[in-house]
């Protein structure tokens, strides 16, 4: 059995990620992210750049390349960090059942 995210024990890493979505992370946050980023279904969330260094949306890459990538129309992100935070929140909810009702920036 691989590690399962514990919403109580792992809650401090939510704040660590919010403060630094891309960068050096603690071993505890690394473990959370490794669990989150491993999807054996083959489905892959991706970040699609609409305007370089200005606009991104999320996309969904299916397991079979014969199927099209599906783009989300909203939200439109103005930074990669904002997109990372959105995906982190979605995955946290999917894995723990809990919502993180906190913006990226205070």
């Amino acid at each position, binding site marked *: 059995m691989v590690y399962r995210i514990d919403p109580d024990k792992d809650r401090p890493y939510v704040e660590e990620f919010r403060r630094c979505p*891309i960068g050096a992370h603690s071993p505890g946050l690394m473990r959370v992210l490794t669990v989150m980023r491993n999807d054996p279904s083959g489905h892959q969330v991706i970040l699609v750049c609409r305007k370089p260094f200005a606009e*991104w949306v999320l996309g969904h890459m299916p397991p079979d390349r014969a199927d099209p*990538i599906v783009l989300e129309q909203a939200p439109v992100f103005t930074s*990669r960090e904002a997109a*990372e935070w959105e995906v982190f929140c979605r995955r946290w909810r999917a894995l723990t059942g809990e919502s993180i009702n906190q913006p990226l920036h205070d």
Partner: protein
Amino acid sequence: MLKITGYPDRYSVAPGETIAFKISLEEGDRFDARIVRVVHGDCNPAGPGLKFRHVPSNADGSYLGRAQRIDAGSFMRADTVPPLGTTAFTFFAVIWPTLPARADQTLACQWNPRSNTGWRVGVDAGRLFLAVAGADGTAALVMTDAAMQRRQWYRILVALDPATGRYRIDQQPIRHYAHVVDSALLDGTLAVRPDTSAAPFVLAGCPSADGRMDRHFDGKIDGPMLLAGLHDRSVHDRLLGVPAADDLAGAIIARWDFARLPDTIIAVDIGPSRHHGTLVHLPARGMKGWNWTGEEHDFKRKPEHYGAIHFHHDDLYDAGWDTSVVFTVPVDLPSGPYALHVSAGPSDETATREDYIAFFVRPPRARKPGETRPPLALLAPTAAYMAYANHGEHITARGAELQMGRLLTFGHADLYLYAHPELGGSLYDTHADGSGVCYSSRLRPVLNFSPRYHSWLGGHGSALYQYNADTHLFDWLDHQGIAYDLITDEDLHEQGYDLLAPYRVVMTGTHPEYHSTSMWDAMKAWIDRGGRLMYMGGNGWYWRIAFHSELPGVIELRRAEDGIRTWIAEPGEYYQSFNGEYGGLWRRVGRPPNMMCGVGFIAQGFDISSYYRRAPDADNPRAAWIFAGVADQIIGDFGLIGGGAAGIELDCLSPDLGAPPNMLRLASSEGHSPMMILVNEEFGVVPPNLGGDLNPRVRADLAFGETPSGGALFATSSIAWCGSLSHNGYENNVSRITWNVLQRFLDPAPFPVR
């Protein structure tokens, strides 16, 4: 999505020569084109921004355009095989299907696509079939009811007697497994006579009415044969025996021995009629066959064990597009990086309607008497560009997000690549059947060989890797006003040492990873004879490659034995088919990168970069000039690639691997993230402290050393180094150190050797 793309017919062109560009439009029927000098291909607003310099030429103008498509998939064609539908014949082979579940694959056929008639042998959902269609409109399909297993060898036989309609289909596994039913034998009679009108004999593909070759087979075919008459399995046994059955010799129509001439695109027919085949789109050769035992790993030493060719429906050598624009390089055009800028309207959030088709103008091939060239050459790593051509692991390999430590970013070019797998993969990708892509060509659109391309693995920030990362160096040289010649890996492979001989200094790109033996020998000879090498990147001289001796613009790699391997070559398939050399890491053939440039690969990580801390050797009188004007203890804690000068892929000094013992460690990087990880070949037992936060060996060593012939080596040891050059208006310690080294290296005074 990308609405316009293309490729040149060469990456390196000399003044006075002509280069042809092949352009495809996804919409509209016209495009504009102009030649530009590429200075800086990074549009990150934190840096200098895009810089292209228009070069007015007769290539400027508006052109008619259209969509051009790619017909991928390898096959063999033998046009001299006579029509086989007139008398009884039998097709034998031993096959290793790698995507047996795919529908409607062709093993062999003589099929007229216009009338949809002829005969065809193939695999559908793992089952061997025979399809026959007559000129009178009748058709029949017979198929076994037992599915072949993936990556298992099967002896197959398909026989047909048109006179009686009798047929036989035999599918027998070489190895049997309990509870697996995968053998079948069918005998029967068809009421259909195949059309005998002329149609080429094709293996692993079938002609289509639109002129394409489709319905390809994925997998290996070993020892295909055509015999006159209706035969059974016992005949195959006798033909496979040694010595072959002489009494059957008279029945042989064709018997292809794929072990012959593996460095060519010729499939040799050892039968009496010599119906040699032509292999299209480079199926993999030097492949072990059904009878490989492991006793010999070199196809040259036991060719009878290497009778297979591996075909893929997604193999591609030459897209074969029509020429859209030609450009004859003026004789006075300076050597350097250029591109054909093509545009077909304004871009927006959903579509990019322009592209930059990159190429390089090399120095003239012959020098005029008295002509002087700059003492500096920039060696563009075009072999590495080809190795990474259309690098698609973000599409084909799940888990890439884990490796990157961030979301995988797709630009319009990546979305286009996803939708067009026929563009072909890089040497990092796998074919649809899971086998590694071991050949990569530049005769196709290469979407990541272009300024403005931002990569999914180029580090946070600008996210550049390979060609576009090298534009950071183009820009710095331009900003500093330094004259140089630009030469390419392909030039070096073809011309050897003589290409380098006139230059005092050679600067590399950020990631010169792939080298042929010819390239390696030339560079080593130049260094040993006094050359001054500025190694401006990381993970250089890592993989050995081969260029094809006849086909232009294609390289081969075998990911053998060790190293960072996104796929792993099969045991027994470590030798390069293009030239018979043992492939894999240069380190594994006794030539580690440390021997060449003083340092060697130690770690990689693609999230963020770090900085160097000055080391005691920086104050050694032998190297103090390198730090003239640099009093800082911390070097490169800034930059466009991951925010630091030490990142992406790192090298370090390793005396035990052949680094010259006189190399000085000027500075070493530190503070790396846990995602900067020690490379595989650096450990035998997997340690728990692989990451840069816990392993002190994970570091880049800024290094310098003199050579006995008065030359010198300088190594930045980091792919991210050049991303820091432009920081603060080019006034920073990375830029200053690079400048100091370049100025001293350009000084003809020999470096002291005692």
